[in-house]
């Protein structure tokens, strides 16, 4: 960047950076896609996708991970929205500590968190959450809620700051609404786009998550990916493309809802 004396030089530098960057980011995607088409010898075909999509283990693990992601979103929203709302309305002095806690999952690596779970919730403890499969599913959901806390809290908190929750609450109280009504009929609809972006980000994080699912020994999509990767040649690349598409879709939906919010805000 030293040679940016004139604007044309700086533009050349900027284009170079963009082109080199695009190459680095696009080549692996192209290579993966190309590889996924090579299953049938001598010609390109979608055989690998067919094999993957018709694999009952793919369907089972993908379905399982979608279910876990949805449960994570529901539990996460029910936990985060009332807390963030309440902190902003009544306990602003707790904001610092609550934000600090929601940031902790970025500090403590997932593998450490799950290690702690395995030690605390083993079958001989007071709360034996790893003793049967349903309980372990529950522990996995709670673990995912923990991992997604930074994203969910941040998205919801930003949504809450954009609306005047105090006036909304007082207006609802004057009209005789009770707390559940205020939360579900007044607050939730007003911060819908914040909740949705938190939800899609959570979905993207949970759907291919490997560490927690693998160490809690649950049949999720992440461990399935790893298993196929260790044993097959062409299927992994097809799966990587599918996973990329899912991530892309989640992020795209955030943009869609984000821009819907901006458009709505621009209206007089």
């Amino acid at each position, binding site marked *: 960047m030293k040679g940016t004396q004139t604007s044309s030089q700086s533009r050349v530098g900027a284009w170079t950076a963009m082109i080199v960057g695009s190459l680095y980011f696009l080549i692996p995607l192209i290579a993966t896609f190309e590889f996924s088409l090579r299953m049938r010898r001598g010609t390109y075909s979608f055989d690998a996708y067919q094999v993957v999509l018709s694999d009952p283990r793919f369907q089972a693990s993908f379905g399982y991970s979608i279910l876990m992601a949805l449960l994570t979103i529901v539990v996460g929203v029910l936990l985060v929205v009332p807390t963030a709302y309440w902190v902003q309305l009544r306990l602003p002095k707790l904001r610092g500590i609550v934000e600090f806690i929601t940031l902790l999952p970025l500090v403590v690596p997932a593998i450490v968190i799950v290690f*702690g779970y395995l030690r605390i919730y083993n079958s001989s403890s007071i709360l034996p959450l790893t003793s049967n499969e349903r309980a372990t599913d529950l522990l996995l959901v709670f673990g995912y809620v923990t991992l997604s806390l930074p994203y969910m809290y941040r998205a919801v908190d930003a949504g809450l700051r954009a609306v005047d929750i105090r006036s909304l609450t007082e207006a609802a109280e004057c009209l005789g609404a009770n707390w559940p009504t205020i939360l579900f009929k007044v607050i939730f609809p007003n911060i819908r786009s914040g909740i949705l972006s938190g939800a899609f980000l959570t979905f993207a994080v949970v759907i291919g998550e490997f560490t927690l699912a693998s160490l809690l020994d649950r049949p999720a999509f992440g461990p399935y990916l790893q298993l196929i990767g*260790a044993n097959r040649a062409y299927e992994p690349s097809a799966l990587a493309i599918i996973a990329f598409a899912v991530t892309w879709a989640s992020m795209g939906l955030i943009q869609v809802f984000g821009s819907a919010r*901006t458009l709505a805000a621009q209206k007089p």
Partner: protein
Amino acid sequence: MSASSEAGPGGQADRLVPSVLQPAPKVDGPGRASPIWTWIGVMPFFIFALLFLILPTGFLMVGAFQDAQGHFTFANMRELLQENTLDAYWISFKVSAASALGGALFGSLLAWAAVHGKLPGWIRPTLLTFSGVASNFAGVPLAFAFICTLGRVGLVTVLLKKYADINLYSTGFSILSFSGLTLTYLYFQIPLMVLIITPALDGLKREWREACDCLGGTAYQYWRYVALPVLWPSVLGATLLLFANSFGAVATAYALTGSSLNIVTILLYAQIRGDVLHNQNLGYALALGMILVTGLSNGGYIWLRSRAERGRR
């Protein structure tokens, strides 16, 4: 895409990089509910955090200083200093540092090009959206993608051999090695840097450059006395965040190298799976070491971020 061009960038980065340091708006509660009820409202959150975040982590931290019978000991700490574990920390450190520095450098360049490079308007929102996707595209699928690209029969390896007559693997390169892992980590580190640093670059006003030019300043002087003093806390802080980000990563490395590369997360993973378990409390010590490293670098990030925000006011 175009509709989101204004909303997308900042919002995206904000969502991905939580800030503890935004000024808290003063909202005084009406105070009609009794104090006990006020506190009950946040109880579910604190109980959840205690059960699924603080107690599990605290249990390991205490366990790191105990022997199998629960007596206090420093033996696990001493075992951490053994060659094998030190080696693992050192490789983890090298991979994380290399991918953090590389990610910070290339991420800043890309973000700079998009913000101040006078490129067409569609580039910036496209870059930020793609960064949002790529920074979340980690783990097992990312490992597959790089095996398809730079593995022994990967597209780039094959094309290089065929057209440029370069045998990548005879140069000592391997996707399963330190350099391969670093190159793979960059795929999510660079986009993360772009997302974090773009708001900071936005704060660098065009007028400053013009003022510097008018006063006869050179490009070097602009960077030395204007841009870098404003930017360095953000850049350094973001680099620390990137470091912590790759230090704790498991899935990418595991899917890429199996257990052949001796990094801390894979060592801990193997310990937990019971592959090499001789001493459970040593596992706790490994975990404690990781928390210390990621905690320190994240702490540095938060501190530098607060400096950067004070500087902007």
